[in-house]
Structures are given as structure tokens and as C-alpha cells.
């Protein structure tokens, strides 16, 4: 039996850097199924929150508690960064890498990597050097490289920021499929259309704090705070 990651409880979690608070204190509970979308203006702390949950930003106060121990939780997570990090290797080797790190034999890893490359439409450029791919191709590769280990929870930090309409739809399709096959998604986005399409739950961040959170349906139909109303209207919120 696999241990569950959720519910996730965040209590007063804060991350600071050289004394400056990047995000927090944040209180949040994530339970139930579905995709959680984090929204908020630039600098609101979306990236900082995701990193804190994933454990790559140091939590200086408060805590993040999973249903299982942190190490197990971490093992079942993957992260797609706002700016994709490409290993200086071929497309296929980028996909093989996380599997090899986890000890999968080379042939099996390669087979799975080819499958994923084909799925994201990069099957014809397996041997291409990943850092020379276009921004959109890199983003898709980064997502595939995260999903290839079949994480139970995937963080995506603005996964579609540099994608055109078509690439965005492709990515969303991959994400919907992943969600359908049991991967929980926590993603941040600037695109309200995308937020509406993907979100089951919304976390609206402002100045490093949770301004409003709840089911997507409620949030979009009846935002409770004036800032959320303004943000959804496309006004400048500070």
C-alpha cells in the first residue's frame, strides 16, 4: 500500500533570505483530490511557496506537514521550474537521467524515455542537444522529465509562461492526463484562462501571504475579497 501524501498542512510557514521574507507566514490545508492552482501578481511569492512545499526553499519559521514523513513525501514529488533547467545532454539523456538516478536499468529507462519523448512530440529529435531546443520544447521536455518518474505530486511553476496557444494546449493535455492517472498537481500561473481550466482548488497569494483560498468554482464565481475581485478583473493589485 502506498502511503498517502495528503492532507498537507502548512502552519505559519515562512521562508526568508538574508533576513528578507520571500513568502509567509502561510497557513494552508490541502486535502481532497484535484489540481491546486496558485495565482497572484508578480512577486507575490508563488515560486517561494512552491519551493517551500517541495522542500527546496528553507523554511525558517512554521512547518509543512505531509500525511507521511517528509522524506517519503519528497521521494514522490517532482518539480518543473519557472525557467527550465536543461542538462547539457541530448533530449533522450535528459529523460533517462532521473530514472537512472533512481536505479532503473539502462534499457528499461531508455525505453520509457523514448515513449515519453514521442508523447510530447520530440520523438524525432531524441539525439538533439537539449540546451539548443526552443523555449517551448525545453518546457515540454522539463515536464516530461518530471512526469517520467511517475510522481504522486507534481509542482509546476508557471509551466506555460513562454508557450504559444498550441503548445499550451499540448501541455495542458499532458497535465490533464497525468492528473487523471493519479498525479496531484500544484501549479502557479498568470493565465486566468488556464487557472479556470485546470483548477479544482485555488490559492490566491498577495505579498507573500494567502489572501484567499477555496474551491475553484467558488473562487471564480464569488471571490470573497476585494483584492481577488480586482485581480480577476485584471486590475493592478498591490
Amino acid at each position, binding site marked *: 500500500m502506498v502511503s498517502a501524501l495528503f492532507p498537507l498542512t502548512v502552519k505559519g510557514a515562512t521562508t526568508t533570505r538574508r533576513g528578507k521574507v520571500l513568502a509567509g507566514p502561510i497557513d494552508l490545508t490541502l486535502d481532497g483530490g484535484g489540481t491546486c492552482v496558485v495565482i497572484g501578481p508578480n512577486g507575490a511569492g508563488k515560486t517561494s511557496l512552491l519551493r517551500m512545499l*517541495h522542500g527546496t526553499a528553507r523554511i525558517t519559521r512554521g512547518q509543512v506537514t505531509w500525511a507521511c514523513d517528509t522524506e517519503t513525501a519528497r521521494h514522490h514529488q517532482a518539480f518543473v521550474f519557472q525557467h527550465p533547467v536543461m542538462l547539457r545532454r541530448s533530449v533522450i539523456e535528459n529523460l533517462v537521467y532521473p530514472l537512472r538516478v533512481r536505479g532503473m536499468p539502462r534499457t528499461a529507462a531508455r525505453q520509457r524515455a523514448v515513449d515519453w519523448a514521442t508523447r510530447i512530440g520530440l520523438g524525432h529529435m531524441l539525439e538533439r542537444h537539449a540546451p539548443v531546443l526552443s523555449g517551448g520544447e525545453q518546457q515540454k521536455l522539463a515536464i516530461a522529465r518530471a512526469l517520467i518518474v511517475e510522481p504522486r505530486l507534481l509542482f509546476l511553476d508557471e509551466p506555460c509562461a513562454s508557450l504559444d496557444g498550441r503548445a499550451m494546449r499540448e501541455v495542458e493535455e499532458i497535465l490533464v492526463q497525468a492528473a487523471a492517472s493519479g498525479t496531484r498537481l500544484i501549479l502557479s500561473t498568470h493565465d486566468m484562462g488556464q487557472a479556470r481550466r485546470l483548477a479544482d482548488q485555488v490559492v490566491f497569494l498577495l505579498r507573500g501571504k494567502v489572501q484567499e483560498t477555496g474551491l475553484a468554482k467558488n473562487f471564480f464565481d464569488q471571490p470573497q475579497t476585494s483584492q481577488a475581485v480586482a485581480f480577476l478583473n485584471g486590475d493592478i493589485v498591490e
Partner: protein
Amino acid sequence: MTDLWQGLVQAFWLVVTFDAELAEISLRSLRVTLTALVVASAIAMPLAAFLSVQRFRFRRHVVALLNALMGLPPVVVGLVVYLMLSRSGPFGVLGLLFTPTAMITAQVIIIVPLIASIAHQSLRDLWQEYHDLLISINVTRRQKIATLLWDARRALLTAGLAGFGRAIGEVGAIMIVGGNIDNATRVLTTAIALETGKGDFALALALGIVLVALAVAVNVAIHWLSRTEREGRW
């Protein structure tokens, strides 16, 4: 002037006819320096990778020390190695003084800081790029180091070539610890020094031609490597 001209002509002949003595000395030089290079790289490159990924209290100091050691005068290295290996020294019983092993030891000490410093610069940059990703997928320290070393292999080759260039042209240290013994420890640089002293310019120049050819080849290779690196291929 005629001396020089005659010397050049003879030197040219020695090279094209693959003169036995010239070949022997050249090969010994290559053997000593390539061995030193392999040993030094095996020490310097993992060390550089470790210094890139591992945070510890005196890391900056260690890096600064490595940079400072690059400027170590080879003659002094030779002197110290001589004292260590001489009969009365701590490693005297090994009987290594005036052997190729002694020369390799000196060359290793001279080029480890050089290779480590150059390698560290590229590995640190690469680590900045990879940091978030590798932390996120939970790689072990060994895996981090292996990944950096593999993905920076071109830069490491450049570092290695720089070390080779430094070692093959070095004369002071290996003269002291090797003793420039005919058929045993005579290499390109020490032979040139000796033949020049004796006035046999032909052999000295021939040896010089080989040495220069090696040095040029190394620099061409470094140049080519750094160009392909910028193009991001390979």
C-alpha cells in the same frame, strides 16, 4: 649564424629520419607527463567537483589556496620532493630518487592546483545551472559529482590539456629529482638544457622542434575545444 643554420638542417634530418635517441627521449617525456597527467586529473577533477557541490566552512579558503598553489615555483617543488625522497628523507627507503616515478611525483604536485583551479571554475558555473534540478530529484553527492564531471567533460579536457602543457615544458623540478640520467630520466627539456650546454645544437634544436610541436598541438586543441564549447555541441 652558420652554426644555427647547420644546426637547423641537422635537426630537421633528425626529426624526419626518426633518430633513435631523439625518439627515445621524446617517448620518455610523453610517458612521464601523460602518467603525471592521469594521476593529477584523478586527484584534481573530483576535488574540483567536490569543492563545487559541497558547502563547508573553509571552502573559500581551500579554493584560494589552490589558486595560490598554481603559482608555486617548480624549482621549489623539485627541491621539496628531492628532500622527501633523498636517502635521509622520510620516503628515502623507497629508493625513488632519480627515477621516472620521482619526476612524475613532482609534475603531479605542480599541475594538480592548475587543473583543479581551471576545472573548478567551469564546474562551479555548471553547478549553479544544475543546482535546483539536482536537489529537486534528490541525487546523492556522488551522483552530483559524477553528473558535473560528465557534463563538463569538454571543459575538463581543456583543464587537462593546460596541465599537460605545463608539465611537458617544465625543466627545473624534474632536473633536480630526475637527475637527467641518460637512458633513464632524460626527457625533452632536460636534454635540451644539457645539449645546449655541450654545444650540440643539432640535437637540442631537434628536441626543441618536438617540444614546440607538442605545445602547439595542445594549444590548438584547447582553442578548438573552447570553440565547440561555446557552440554548445558535442
